[in-house]
């Protein structure tokens, strides 16, 4: 197989693409390519990964202009004319090369009250939540988020409004709103109801289109919009 022509972002916000040649291999992933470059071509290349199997959510990058998890993105699927361009995630400050500072991404989970608040202690019996209940099904639809930041990177509203909580944080809030054990429903709805909350979503569906886990944060955000409206009308918030 012909060598792959790879362009990799070097530097911080200001930087440039550096070109490398990487031998093609069968079932080669984009993360394999980055790892090859770091080990064989330039050990100063910085990137982030951990599990390599689509669980940890740490290896997301922009591949040929599209935010993706690189460990489960095959080169065959994304190479155009045997070329791949690899850059850091969008909408986040670049620390170096392919590594972004994800602080604001996770801070926004906290702002959206993304932490479960229960009313029982560890000594209590397990809560019984029917898998068939409407709430549980809604939680199931959004709970598999791995926090990779792909949706945040793909979202235009994040680009336009730096305070926007973003798809992942709002999706997390939606799963907690539907968690029947949670005790902070009203506070959480108030937290996601502001200008930078669910109502800022333009329903571009960039997040739904790009989520590597096949989740639809758009659906959760739409659910939050309805829940906020109902809570406002009923005087809950």
């Amino acid at each position, binding site marked *: 197989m012909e060598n792959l022509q790879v362009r990799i972002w070097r530097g911080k916000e200001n930087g440039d693409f550096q070109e490398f040649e990487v031998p093609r291999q069968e079932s080669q992933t984009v993360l394999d390519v980055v790892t090859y470059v770091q080990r064989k071509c330039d050990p100063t290349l910085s990137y982030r990964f951990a599990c390599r199997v689509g669980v940890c959510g740490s290896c997301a990058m922009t591949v040929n202009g599209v935010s993706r998890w690189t460990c489960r993105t095959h080169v065959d699927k994304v190479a155009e004319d045997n070329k791949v361009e690899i850059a850091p995630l*969008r909408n986040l400050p670049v620390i170096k090369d392919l590594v972004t500072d994800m602080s604001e991404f996770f801070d926004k989970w906290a702002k959206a009250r993304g932490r479960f608040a229960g009313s029982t202690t560890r000594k209590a019996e397990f809560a019984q939540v029917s898998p068939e209940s409407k709430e549980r099904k809604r939680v199931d639809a959004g709970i598999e988020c791995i926090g990779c930041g792909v949706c945040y990177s793909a979202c235009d509203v994040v680009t336009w409004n730096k305070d926007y909580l973003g798809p992942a944080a709002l999706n997390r809030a939606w799963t907690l709103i539907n968690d029947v054990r949670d005790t902070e429903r009203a506070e959480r709805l108030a937290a996601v109801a502001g200008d930078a909350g669910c109502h800022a979503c333009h329903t571009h569906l960039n997040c739904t289109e790009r989520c590597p886990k096949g989740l639809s944060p758009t659906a959760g955000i*739409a659910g939050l919009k309805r829940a906020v409206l109902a809570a406002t009308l009923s005087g809950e918030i």
Partner: protein
Amino acid sequence: MKNDFRARNHPAYWAFIVHRTSGLLLTFFLPLHFWALGQAFHGAAGLDRFLDWTQNPLVKFAETGLVLLLSAHMAGGARLLMIEFLDWREWQKTLLAVAAGVSLVAVMAFLLNLV
């Protein structure tokens, strides 16, 4: 760093562009529409003259564009309302094709009526 067109190259984003563009163009059309209706204030003759002018084949053909804008904006808007107000189902992704289809059918029907 910001996204470029490659990140936005998917049908739902095209739907957004169509919805926003048609909305803006219709906003520009509305004052013209009200001006035309306002001709009635100056008597029936003025309005009739304007309505006669609109029978011009070129104007009729241009109206097709207007029907396209209206139908695209309405069908796209209905799609958005269904995404926002109904619980998420996988078929909502295909609403996009339905909206495009409805819009095109409306334009075809208008064109058939013209000829």
